[in-house]
């Protein structure tokens, strides 16, 4: 049948639950001073200091080989740390991208030298990455990238502009996606990835302030930026295949349905025991969706661990997950009678405001809703 297969997730074990208890104790201790509004930022909230502490616990690079500074724990143990930090609203943003997708890409496609250089640094919580995919004229149509790498003596020269680059202002490196061949056989070939040191001369990072008045993403301009040959990630011309594999990591995790979880906990805190049946039904329905998404997302973690390619399943989880995140804002606002206000002393009121202002981005970042539905449709054989 036409089913998209989600095999049963690997079961929880004594080891995962012991780890879970450790993570909860750590978060209780380390997050004691954080305001609810800070927790609401979830995996976009950045604290290099917090990232270093996570690394000290061995919770960055958990599933990589020890030779690269990893901890050789299972994909499921890693999943426990991810979901516990998200549920609590921990400020994991600084290392999130490196741990989620940059390092797995380097591990998979990088040279031995690159692995030895980057992975231990990432695992130590002192090396942050950003994603250089989108451009002013190349958003959903990623293959239309105009940023160019031209082969020069000893390396490449880069020119072009990346945009919406989350965390570029604090990142040490970027994985850059750009064109290396201007006359390719088809539009998906002739593109490549590079690991770019953000301190390289010729790179300018300009802040872009978002509608909530925060500085999360940036414009990154490359002017005659020289990269040594060793900066190439994977094979020249293989960029499309590599970026597709990277996106499975980017799209399937618990960050795609737990971004608004702090809103649900604040709603419960605000409502206390004064919950009528209608409101209880709204809350219960959200819980039903969360429990199901969590199973689907853990199932993908298992597939990734076994080396399978769950790109379509990842699109399903992101599409259902971000829809739920957005809907949570819409339905919870109707059962707790406050007007959203970022500056409010009331935790729920401030968190609601944060979520409402950020909700539109949930189904844009990491690939838009329409693009994800297109990927699922292709998986069904419709295109």
């Amino acid at each position: 049948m036409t089913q998209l297969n989600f095999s049963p997730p690997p079961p929880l074990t004594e080891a995962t639950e012991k780890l879970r208890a450790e993570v909860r104790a750590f978060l209780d201790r380390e997050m004691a001073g954080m305001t609810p509004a800070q927790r609401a930022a979830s995996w976009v909230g950045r604290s290099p200091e917090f990232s270093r502490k996570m690394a000290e616990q061995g919770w960055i690079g958990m599933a990589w080989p020890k030779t690269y500074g990893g901890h050789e724990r299972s994909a499921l143990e890693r999943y426990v740390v991810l979901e516990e930090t998200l549920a609590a609203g921990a400020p994991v943003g600084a290392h999130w991208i490196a741990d989620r997708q940059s390092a797995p890409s380097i591990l998979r496609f990088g040279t031995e030298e690159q692995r030895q250089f980057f992975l231990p640094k990432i695992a130590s919580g002192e090396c942050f990455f950003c994603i250089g995919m989108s451009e002013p004229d190349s958003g959903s149509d990623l293959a239309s990238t105009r940023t160019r790498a031209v082969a020069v003596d000893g390396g490449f020269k880069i020119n072009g502009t990346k945009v919406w680059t989350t965390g570029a202002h604090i990142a040490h490196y970027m994985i850059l996606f750009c064109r290396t061949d201007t006359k390719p056989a088809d539009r998906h070939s002739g593109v490549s990835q590079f690991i770019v040191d953000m301190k390289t001369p010729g790179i300018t990072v300009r802040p872009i302030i978002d509608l909530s008045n925060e500085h999360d993403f940036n414009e990154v301009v490359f002017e005659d930026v020289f990269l040594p040959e060793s900066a190439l990630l994977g094979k020249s011309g293989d960029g499309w295949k590599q970026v597709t594999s990277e996106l499975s990591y980017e799209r399937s995790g618990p960050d795609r349905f737990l971004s608004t979880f702090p809103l649900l906990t604040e709603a419960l805190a605000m409502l206390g025991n004064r919950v009528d049946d209608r409101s209880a039904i709204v809350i219960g329905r959200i819980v039903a969706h969360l429990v199901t998404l969590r199973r689907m997302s853990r199932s993908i973690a298992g597939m990734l661990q076994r080396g399978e390619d769950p790109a379509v399943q990842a699109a399903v989880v992101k599409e259902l997950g971000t829809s739920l995140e957005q809907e949570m804002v819409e339905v919870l606002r109707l059962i707790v009678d406050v007007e959203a206000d970022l500056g409010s002393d009331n935790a729920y009121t401030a968190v609601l405001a944060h979520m409402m202002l950020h909700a539109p981005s949930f189904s844009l970042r990491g690939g838009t809703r329409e693009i994800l539905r297109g990927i699922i449709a292709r998986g069904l054989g419709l295109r």
Partner: protein
Amino acid sequence: MSETANLLREMSERLFGEICDKSLLIAAEKGEWPAALWSAMEENGLTNALVPESAGGAGLGISDAFVALRVSASHAAPVPFAETLIAGWLASGAGLAVPSGPLTVAPVRTDETLQLEKRSGGWRLTGRAHRVPFARHATAIVVLAKAGDTPHVAVVDPGRCKIEHGHSLAVEPRDDVAFDCELGPGDVRAAASGVDVATLQAFGAAARAMQISGALARALEITVGYAQERVQFGKPIAKFQAIQHNLAMLAAHSAAANAAADMAAEAAERGMNRLVIAAAKTRCGEAAGVGAAIAHAAHGAIGFTQEHTLHFFTKRLWSWRDEFGKESDWSLELGRAAVAAGPAGLWPDIVAA
């Protein structure tokens, strides 16, 4: 998937695929009992899957047995398979002999209770149960009734009850049964420890969740196939992006229903964990509604006819989502549990689910 589950799936695919065709489904809507289908199911040991081997059954776990249940639903099998599985489990769990033939259970609605009173030389069973699936075709109704405060299980001959015929949207029998009969001492036993009407409702909900996942998978398959064949504006409608996106959502909800139903089956096996089943039935019920709507939209008028097979599946989706608690019933229970857990307890509860 376990070896047993794989074998069961293959065997069920063959069995239902061969016998459960369109003419059988049409005849069933007209009131005919599909005797050949049922015998084949019995011969292959499907119907007593949850009865222990010591009591003459196949002694399977719930997750494995539900693999066959999902397949039966993906063929819209118009038989009380889920009900017979549950009845066998309930009766054998109480130490009662499990009759052969199609079985059903009562009550299927939480707001109904049946009473048992001890009489000299036996019991007297009274009460009414509404919308009991396939009661008219059952060789026995396995009933959960209260004797005083304790739940008891009784095996009742439908011939001794007053049965009024009714139907689900899929034109499956849903009969009102009035019980007022004497039962022998061997027909009644105390229910297995921890089993009461709420357990029966949860088990029924887990079964309906599994059935929804099977029927929705078929609706997806039929719809994808149709979209690739139907030509308008000079190309298959599957080439239109609006259609592609709608079918992507149908596939997403179908995948979610599958995951939720698997979860419910495991939860049923692990001591009938109510909250997990509540989540699964809620999620599957929602998927049923969204999925059926998309499937029909993509079919245009032909899907709205008796002639086309889609309705055998969508009508079952619409009726199954209402049975053994609808989304709102189970969400209410989940929501109250979330409120009771409070802000600090909710996440640990979700993880434990």
